[in-house]
């Protein structure tokens, strides 16, 4: 054993370095956690509608491809999303049980009416029963079809592309089957028409 006299100065110097290293390491760890936790990541090619993060527009060239899906409508007919290729589609995920869906339903009915020559509307009825869903569409004058998706498997198909944080979510899909914009939560008239303006003009139609 080295005598304490020989050992101590080295040890003291070393310990200071170690303590400093530990302090720096802890600081860096905390900083990483805090910064990463609160800053959030930016997403290029995406703009918020009216500074509101609940609605986004993808720039042309940054639009994710919508997945293929099929289903049965509330009235019992088979429907495949691929048959909508070449049309601008508003895809609305909703449920009769969902309170914000009831709030946005009149807006959707109006926009569907206004854009009926340019845009096709399609609903996806989530976690619902046919009786309640049909009562809902009757009440709000929704005339476009909705796919029955009680287990939310259609929503699952979109997870890899645009994860649906909840119901309602409204996606606007351009003529090539790419997602041009999305509204998370209650869709408002300005939000919907702002996104539709990007895909119904010649420039945005691709």
């Amino acid at each position, binding site marked *: 054993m080295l005598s304490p006299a020989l050992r101590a100065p080295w*040890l003291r110097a070393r310990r200071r370095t170690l303590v400093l290293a*530990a302090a720096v390491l802890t600081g860096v760890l905390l900083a990483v956690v805090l910064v990463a936790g609160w800053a959030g990541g930016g997403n290029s090619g995406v703009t918020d509608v009216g500074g509101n993060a609940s609605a986004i527009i993808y720039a042309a060239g940054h639009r994710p491809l919508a997945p293929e899906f099929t289903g049965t409508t509330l009235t019992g007919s088979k429907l495949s999303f691929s048959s909508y290729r070449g049309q601008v589609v508003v895809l609305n995920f909703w449920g009769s049980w969902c309170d914000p869906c009831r709030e946005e339903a009149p807006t959707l009915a109006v926009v569907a009416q206004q854009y009926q020559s340019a845009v096709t509307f399609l609903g996806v009825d989530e976690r619902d029963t046919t009786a*309640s869903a049909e009562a809902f569409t009757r009440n709000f004058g929704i005339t476009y079809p909705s796919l029955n998706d009680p287990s939310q498997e259609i929503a699952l198909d979109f997870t890899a592309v645009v994860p649906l944080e909840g119901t309602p979510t409204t996606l606007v899909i351009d003529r090539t089957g790419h997602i041009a914009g999305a509204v998370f939560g209650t869709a408002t008239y300005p939000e919907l028409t702002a996104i539709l303006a990007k895909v119904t003009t010649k420039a945005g139609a691709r």
Partner: protein
Amino acid sequence: MTDVRAPETDPFDPAAERDDQPRPGPASPGGGTFGLADWLKWVWRQLTSMRIALVLLFLLALGSVPGSMLPQQGTNPAGVQQYYASHPALAPWLSHLGLFNVFGAPWFAAIYLLLFASLVGCVVPRTFRLAGSARTLPPRAPRHLARLPRSAEYATALPPGDAVEVAAGVLAGHGFRLRRPADPADAGHWVSAEKGYLREVGNLLFHLALLGVLVSVALGGLFGYKADRLLIQGDTFADTASALDEFYPGRFVTAADLGPFTITLNKFDASYISSGSQRGQPSAFDAQISYTEQPGGPTRTGQLEVNRPLSVDGAKVYLIGHGYAPEFRVTDARGQVVYNAATPFISGTTGNFLSEGVVKVPDAQPEQLGFTGVFVPTAVDVGGTLESVFPAADNPVVSLIAYAGNLGVNTGVSQSVYQLDTGGMKRLTTNPQLLLPGQSLKLPGGQGTITFTGYVPWASLTITHDPGQLPALICGIAALGGLLLSFMIRRRRVFVRARSGEHGTTVQVGGLARTDASGGFEDEFATLAAELRSAHEQAAPEKPAAHRQQEGE
């Protein structure tokens, strides 16, 4: 807090330091000005001291108490609302203090971040010190070996240099770490030997594992998630954020990180003990499920039992609760079926699954309809009120109160599906109306009809993904192993000195062991000394051995 050594200062180890040494404070001598850097150093020393770590640990425990005493926003939002209703003056204050969301409160985060910093700041430097101490050589042999706790002395015919050589060979054969003088001419003939470095390795392992546990816990918090979903028998759900009733993602988890599996609850059975003092206690739960790991993948079947989760796609699915979902069909004033669904009712902790629930029919015409209901699985009339005497549905009865008016659901503000806001509604039935399966209640004023068509069980599932779980387990086991090593293995030293005297060479053997470990060193030393002696005798040339003699200095 991380020292597994004996409390007394370790004579073996200059690297070991007492944790509770008085630390120099701001008023410490040494003169001069106490600048910002000194203050920071002082704060850091305080933070990483065992005392503060213990205080923080205690605060953490204390801080979690309101989390279990008061209803929490995340797990029991209905309970919070109830608390607001029953303590209107107190509740806002508690809310300001974050007591309804303890584990997300800034003060709670402050405690655990400080504790984390304290532990890291304490464990990291200590780890390096221990690593240094595990590499040290044995000390030089003391001059007077007879003064050591164990000693032996004998004479040999070998010259001192050879005697030490032979002793070194024996000790090395026993796995001792050796130290020899750099220059025997100057320092005499001796060899120092030390064994039990595994103790230091154990201590080191314990500290490293402790750091590993911390990192694992952080990993789980950052990259893990927890979600809840209530699933009615016969229903399927896909693991997406929108299909989950509750979703608590870690800091770095988004809805896109959820595994793309689907689960169907094919059948749920609960059996109960039907007689004896345990009557009504559950004897078994069994959820038959089928699942696919990804869209379009093969369908597998499985079974969920309490504490036997299903592993799917990196997540674990636990069965955590169950209940009854009575089925209702509602026809409105215009004769249209506006509701036909199984509606989950929630039971209290007592009362044999006497469950409460709400049926909302927002699209009934001309007015919205709402019902508050009680589902009684085995109903018995006790003095005019219904009670459930057994948790199984042996005599199911539903009791309903009907309302008509404005449910308040069209304004976009999400309501709880388990609560009815009757503020905008009028009560249609003065008394609760009892229905047996198949029976209907005609609402007054031709508002419609509600039929209790049957009931199905539901199961609630918790889906967790904790990437830190396995590392935490491994580190926990390693920490325990390290602790055991450092407790059970003792450092022991043996010194051999050989001096030439008038009657040949005298060999002195001395030994000492740590006192805080289990005994047995006496025997070990005696065996070793005997072995050394016989080795010396064997190695000695054929010549009458010098008689033993005492030699002192």
